């Protein structure tokens, strides 16, 4: 038996925990650079604000309707996510954190009334973290996802929890479920299924799995079996080891000057190095890339990348920044408006397997390790930007537009929630 716990309107809910006056009011969260809507509270959905709507298009309407607008605050959402996952992991022997706001729970062999058990989990997660969640329970992951979706829509007699097995007629429900709503079915697939006469989840369930496999491959066959209640997609407890790290971003305003880009690229390299060290990895190469906006056909376009390979795999910030600078120098051309840049570490190894070469002294490696450890400790203790490489702060033109960002209530001592009465 599986369950999936899914946080309701997660980003909007995170903002509400620290601003409870927003409960019952419409809330939206914007993407990087305040581009478009990426999360909505139910009230904002009711107002007709669409997912992906560009902010400049809804700005006036949002003001008029009193919608609370936030820039995305990933420090906050990441921390709140960890809290939710931590609480959830106490209630099942095995869990799979599926995304920032979803988690599969393995309930095999649990003898309880799972609806009551999950209602308790919802209450406890809400109490401990302030985040409301819904839980779908079913014999397969695919059906659990579907049950969760139905619970969110208010179709469950038990509020936020729906156990698939308690449905009076699974057939009636499946018949009303469009293919797009199923886990793992893309729009392209659902169109293709339509052309062969399969229009809803029930028809898909009752199709011939072997034929489906011939037409679409093994993934579709599994979905058919899972809809029949036969589990084919197991819990993945260990996330696959990261193969690459990408830090990249679109700029709030387009950049034309070398120093501005250099500053951005320094930041990306420094963040990538931090991520490497946090996961005890080292990289064998670094790729730096820059590009103009592919959507702006009125201006000349250019994009390029440069890759440096390291003699010894490294996770040293200075070395990564250095090679990012060299790469940038090689590919930067004057006269273009750059819209995006990034740093990619394409090939990662556990740091423990890194060996010094004959001509590199063990002392140098030691020294780099100590320096990086000190850097990370200080930045962890005093906030992310306490110590930075000088080339990062030469320019701030590349910074994101984050007009409406809430404080990092849970990750920065200087931004704690404040109570005034």
């Amino acid at each position, binding site marked *: 038996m599986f369950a999936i716990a899914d946080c309701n309107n997660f980003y909007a809910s995170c903002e509400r925990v620290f601003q*409870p006056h927003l409960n019952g009011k419409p809330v939206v969260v914007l993407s990087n650079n305040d581009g478009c809507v990426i999360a909505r509270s139910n009230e904002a959905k009711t107002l007709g604000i669409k997912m992906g709507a560009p902010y400049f298009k809804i700005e006036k309407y949002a003001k008029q309707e009193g919608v609370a607008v936030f820039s995305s605050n990933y420090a906050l959402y990441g921390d709140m996510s960890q809290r939710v996952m931590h609480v959830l992991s106490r209630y099942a022997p095995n869990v799979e954190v599926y995304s920032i706001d979803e988690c599969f729970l393995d309930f095999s062999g649990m003898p309880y009334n799972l609806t009551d058990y999950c209602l308790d989990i919802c209450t406890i997660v809400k109490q401990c973290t302030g985040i409301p969640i819904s839980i779908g329970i079913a014999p397969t992951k695919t059906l659990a996802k579907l049950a969760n979706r139905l619970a969110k829509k208010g179709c469950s007699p038990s509020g936020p929890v729906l156990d698939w097995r308690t449905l009076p007629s699974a057939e009636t429900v499946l018949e009303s479920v469009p293919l797009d709503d199923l886990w793992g079915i893309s729009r392209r697939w659902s169109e293709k299924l339509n052309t062969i006469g399969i229009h809803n989840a029930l028809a898909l369930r009752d199709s011939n799995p072997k034929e489906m496999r011939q037409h679409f491959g093994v993934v579709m066959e599994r979905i058919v079996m899972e809809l029949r209640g036969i589990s084919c997609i197991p819990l993945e407890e260990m996330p696959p080891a990261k193969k690459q790290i990408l830090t990249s971003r679109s700029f709030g305003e387009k950049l034309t000057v070398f120093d501005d880009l250099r500053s951005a690229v320094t930041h990306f390299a420094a963040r990538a190095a931090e991520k490497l060290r946090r996961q005890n990895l080292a990289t064998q190469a670094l790729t730096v890339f820059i590009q103009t906006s592919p959507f702006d056909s009125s201006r000349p376009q250019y994009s390029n990348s440069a890759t440096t390979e390291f003699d010894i795999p490294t996770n040293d910030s200075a070395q990564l920044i250095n090679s990012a600078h060299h790469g940038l120098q090689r590919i930067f051309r004057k006269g273009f408006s750059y819209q995006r840049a990034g740093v990619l570490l394409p090939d990662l190894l556990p740091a423990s397997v890194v060996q010094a070469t004959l001509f590199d*002294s063990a002392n140098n490696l030691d020294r780099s390790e100590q320096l990086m450890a000190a850097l990370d400790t200080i930045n962890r203790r005093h906030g992310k930007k306490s110590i930075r490489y000088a080339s990062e702060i030469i320019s701030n033109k590349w910074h994101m537009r984050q007009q409406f960002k809430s404080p990092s209530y849970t990750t920065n001592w200087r931004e704690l929630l404040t109570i005034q009465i």
Partner: protein
Amino acid sequence: MLDLPLFGSKIPAGFPSPADDHLEATIDLNQQYVRHPAATFFVRVQCHSMINAGIHNGDMLVVDRSLEAKSGSIVIAVVNGELTVKRLIKNLEGVWLMPENPDFQPLQIRDSMELHVWGVIAHVIHSLQP
């Protein structure tokens, strides 16, 4: 030009410390004061209404949301959407949010008001440094 080291590793010398056998882990404040990390939040106070309960302006509160709010608990409460720190009193006469400073008035929760407990205060951190 390469700098070649003469020795790649350090050679330990001298006697081992007699205290080595008695080493214990250092004291970690989190262990004592953050019992439920997933449910613990730090909150800053900017008011004087709880001064007699030892909560001063500028103090930091360790809020443990996993604790049950009982009558007498000091809590962060949400009244009509607004956050406040008070002592929660529940008795036959009703529900009250009590300040701990005679300059402030108790607040009785009436039916028209919306109250929920945001979290129970487990500890107060009061710094003696400016």
